[in-house]
């Protein structure tokens, strides 16, 4: 069973060309796991929401990826690099192996997908 939760946040970044871009990022986080026979759930959505808020929203919402986070000190952010970071942060915070893929869309025209 796959279970997907969505989150939107706003963040800006200076891309490798030096241009400053701001987006409403749309993030879809998909977990893959068996349905717990007792609760009928793969995961308590409250727990997933909490992880997404702590790991992603609290770090990046209304921030500059370059200036307000420690992740892009020595390299310029790109949507692909940011998506890989989001996957890594969530993968570390979630029970092992549960994260299946993320989809991160800076705009309606572009989606980056990162999976196992």
């Amino acid at each position: 069973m796959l279970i997907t939760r969505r989150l939107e946040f706003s963040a800006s970044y200076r891309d490798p060309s030096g241009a400053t871009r701001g987006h409403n990022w749309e993030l879809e986080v998909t977990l893959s796991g068996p349905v717990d026979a007792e609760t009928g759930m793969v995961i308590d959505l409250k727990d997933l929401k909490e992880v997404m808020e702590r790991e992603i929203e609290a770090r990046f919402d209304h921030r500059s990826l370059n200036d307000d986070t420690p992740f892009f000190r020595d390299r310029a952010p790109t949507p692909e690099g940011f998506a890989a970071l989001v996957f890594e942060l969530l993968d570390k915070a979630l029970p092992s192996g549960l994260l299946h893929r993320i989809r991160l869309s800076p705009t309606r025209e572009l989606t980056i997908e990162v999976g196992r």
Partner: protein
Amino acid sequence: MIRSIRRYEFSAAHVLARPDWSDARNRAVYGKCANPSGHGHNYRLELTLEGASGADVPLDAIVEKRVLRELDARLLNREVPAFARLVPTAENIARHIWDTLFDALAPARLVGVRLVETSNNSVEYFGSEPQR
């Protein structure tokens, strides 16, 4: 490989609570979704099919008869026998729809059931559980 994805909508109310648990335990596990009065969703259902077209299988009629008539405008826990004891989480509803439709849709092969509960939450079931 050609797949078709057909979309439906239904509205249903549910209570996320096990009848064999206390109210306190249900509230601890399911939070506000355990409210005994029930709450409702406009569910979006996406069926992914392979191996036959709408010309071979009267898909809409089958889904209407077996799924929508059973679930639409119901309080799932009370009015749908499958959920008399099974908690109607999105996961369990998706699996129920899969089990209800899989044989009925032959020769079309059901390969995915996606159930969107709210704009933020959805589940997808492919007929088996991943190995952990």
